């Protein structure tokens, strides 16, 4: 409205009209607050991305992918170290539940998170200084005993150290690492990588590993002694004893447990096997054993499984690699008996058609079709039909069907209340990252017990589903598969790594595909689309932006256009902050009562105009009734 040439009455003259900067300029919104105008208020509320939720250690995957995307590798590495002490290990051997949960799978293909993790892990191992030493608290004088130096024990020791506790790890084998060394072949996890990760851990100070100590063995400390001598105990014994076959000839020379086979090769001891190897079992151990056997014997290895091909419990990428390397498969077959020669050596096996069935207790019960037996010649039989652990050292009431029985916090029944368990020995054969997660959880709970805090379950989290993302913002981009060594090369070497690392460009490209599900990554979209300049970048409410609530009209364009779904609409009336309410006062009422007041000046103007009009009309009206136009 132009006021030029108009007489503005005194009371309507605005002290700021004409000089007030428009809202898009600095401070305009502050001078003309439109107040609480909305039904809904946009609120930045970060959710948990599905990858983060699926990871047993709770790695903040979205966060470190974002760092990698921006070339901040050290920040990314430090982010991983908050949850996982050994990204170089998990970046190679993890069965990546994160990638299985990745929302990107619904969009095109899941992100190669494991490859990026490995990239960061190797980046960290190559640093001149150990960044894990940063910000470590001083030791508080309390020491925790840990049984087992596998991922569970190491993870627990690491997280205890981060909380200021020292720990002593007792390892039954003569070298530390547990399953990482004695179960996972070197072509999955090179020994130097494991050694480097171990050195990084021991470098923190306060962590001691005593090898060759088997808890409860004759001449070795018993569990109760540990409980008395240390402030708490964590049992991560693992499961490294292979289940025995229950068929004729199982005692023959040449029938070897796959676990024992992998352990001996992992520890670098001489192992002799024949050229024709049968591996009994349908899981990852069978696959690892068969592939190691090919590398060792240079011959052929065949996996005999009750499972049909589609039922095999082998990780898909491992299965494909095994096929590339020439591992044979005989699905839906069972070993009926072992054939031996006169010296008691294996000379073959009798296989029969079979089907995987389970008894009422969930145990595997092969259903063999009678009359289908066929003889197969072989020199060695590797048995990979499951693992157990000897639990003599644990009180009887704390065991159940070969596993340690614990409460929801992993605490076993014991008078001290300070003995925790985790990893395979509690949950059965599972992933390295499960054990790492158990170690992390146990460290937290041990800390709580020792600080006389109550144990409590994790807070519930809201996991971001794919459907709530604004997927229009994400271009389809194919996943970069991690490169692999040629099958011919790796068939002949026990140490040639099968899966190779991403290059820096590949890692950045892969991290760039992250949709940052439910977490603000500062994309500026809300800042750009807000028609009212109410999204601010100067006062950073969520680390990135804040909403100017005195000016936001609640149009919710920002919520609609938030790619990651971290912006939510919350009903304005739910905000119970009466003191924060700013009411709009229109420019037409600069003071109380002015909005509808008829000022004496205005009234006089109107009255004068009416009187003038009336006078003119009465003058121009002819008394004879004839109107005259003036």
């Amino acid at each position, binding site marked *: 409205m132009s006021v030029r040439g108009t007489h503005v009455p005194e009371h309507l003259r605005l002290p700021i009209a004409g000089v007030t900067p428009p809202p898009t300029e600095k401070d305009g919104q502050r001078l003309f607050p439109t*107040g609480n105008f909305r*039904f809904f208020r946009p609120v930045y509320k970060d959710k948990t991305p599905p990858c983060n939720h699926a990871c047993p250690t709770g790695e903040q995957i979205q966060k470190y992918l974002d760092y990698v995307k921006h070339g901040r590798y050290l920040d990314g590495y430090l982010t991983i170290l908050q949850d996982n002490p050994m990204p170089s290990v998990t970046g190679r051997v993890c069965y990546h539940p994160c990638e299985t949960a990745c929302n990107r799978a619904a969009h095109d293909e899941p992100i190669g998170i494991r490859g990026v993790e490995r990239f960061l892990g190797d980046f960290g191992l190559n640093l001149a200084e150990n960044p894990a030493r940063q910000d470590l608290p001083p030791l508080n004088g309390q020491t925790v005993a840990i049984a087992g130096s596998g991922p569970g024990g190491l993870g627990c020791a690491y997280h205890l150290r981060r909380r200021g506790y020292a720990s002593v790890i007792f390892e039954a084998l003569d070298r530390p690492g547990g399953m990482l060394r004695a179960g996972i072949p070197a072509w999955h996890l090179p020994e130097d990588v494991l050694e480097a990760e171990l050195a990084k851990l021991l470098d923190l100070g306060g962590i001691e590993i005593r090898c060759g100590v088997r808890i409860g063995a004759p001449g070795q400390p018993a569990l109760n002694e540990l409980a008395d001598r240390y402030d708490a105990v964590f049992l991560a014994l693992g499961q490294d004893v292979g289940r025995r076959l229950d068929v004729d000839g199982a005692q023959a020379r040449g029938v070897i447990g796959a676990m024992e086979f992998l352990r001996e090769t992992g520890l670098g001891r001489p192992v002799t096997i024949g050229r024709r190897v049968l591996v009994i079992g349908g899981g990852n151990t069978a696959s690892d054993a068969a592939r190691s056997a090919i590398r060792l014997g240079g011959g052929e290895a065949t996996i005999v499984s009750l499972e049909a091909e589609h039922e095999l419990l082998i990780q898909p990428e491992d299965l494909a690699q095994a096929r590339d390397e020439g591992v044979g498969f005989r699905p839906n077959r069972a070993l009926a008996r072992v054939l031996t020669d006169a010296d008691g050596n294996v000379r073959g096996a009798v296989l029969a058609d079979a089907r995987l069935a389970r008894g009422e207790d969930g145990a595997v019960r092969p259903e063999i079709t009678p009359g289908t037996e066929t003889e197969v010649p072989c020199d060695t039989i590797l048995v990979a039909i499951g693992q157990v652990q000897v639990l003599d050292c644990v009180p009887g009431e704390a065991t159940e069907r070969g596993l340690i029985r614990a409460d929801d916090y992993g605490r076993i029944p014991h008078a001290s209340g300070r003995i925790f368990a985790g990893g395979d020995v509690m949950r059965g054969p599972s992933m390295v990252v499960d054990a790492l997660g158990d170690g992390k959880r146990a460290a937290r709970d041990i800390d709580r017990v020792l600080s006389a805090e109550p144990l409590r379950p994790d807070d519930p989290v809201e996991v971001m589903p794919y459907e709530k993302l604004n997927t229009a913002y994400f271009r389809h981009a194919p996943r970069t598969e991690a490169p692999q060594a040629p099958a011919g090369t790796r068939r002949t070497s026990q140490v040639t790594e099968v899966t190779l690392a991403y290059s820096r460009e590949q890692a950045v490209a892969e991290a760039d595909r992250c949709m940052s599900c439910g977490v603000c990554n500062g994309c500026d979209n809300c800042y750009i689309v807000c028609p009212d300049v109410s999204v601010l970048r100067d006062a950073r409410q969520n680390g990135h932006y804040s909403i100017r609530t005195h000016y936001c009209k609640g149009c919710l364009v920002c919520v609609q256009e938030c790619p990651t779904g971290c912006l939510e609409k919350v009903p304005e009336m739910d905000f119970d902050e009466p003191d924060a309410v700013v009411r709009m006062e*229109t420019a037409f009422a600069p003071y109380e009562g002015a909005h509808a007041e*008829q000022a004496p000046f205005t009234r006089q103007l109107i009255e004068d105009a009416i009187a003038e009009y009336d006078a003119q009309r009465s003058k121009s009206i002819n008394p004879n009734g004839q109107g005259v136009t003036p």
Partner: protein
Amino acid sequence: MHHELTVWSRGIIMDKEARDVSTCIATAARNLGYHAENVSDYVDDPDRTNCLVRRYARFADAPILDRFVYENPHPDWVVLVEETIIKAVNFFRGTPEGQGVLVINSARDPAYLLKFLPAPMLARLGKLVVVDATGLAEQRGSSPWMFVRDLSELAFDRMSTEGAVERLAIGRGIAAPLIGALVAATGDLPVEVVAEVVADRDAMIRGAKQHTVVEYAREH
């Protein structure tokens, strides 16, 4: 008797509701022999979705002689068609101390709503009437943004926003319970007489019966 009713609402999406409340009150008052006026909003833009808009009615037993005044200078009846307006504006400008009747369409606790009124506004509040008009209205349409109306009706409604004739029945939807609560809580107009000019009579009666009154001025 002289009453001024100001209905606060939001442009387009619930402008019809505000219009219907003021139209019905003015019409009923005139039918009862009072001098009455019904005024549209000439100050704010009533054609902007979600903007605060006002509708005015006033009635008195003497002629209303204000000229060129298109707002109520001293509103003693105030209706908020939507609850968040309680945070948005000082709707008690010019209201005589302790005499304001405030009708809010809300399902919330009156004590919670009162928290948002600052002391100068509370000084003018005589009576707080809380009615869940959205819940009491005949449920039609699907979008909560349209207050139980659908898009095609909203398109019709948009044409009548700026002073054209009403294309739809007057006094239905959430307007009906709001009128009922206002009339019953103030008691100056007989409910039965007002009900005659309200299209959705049943919902109006529901509003007249189911509302909460806080006699604020008397209790404080």
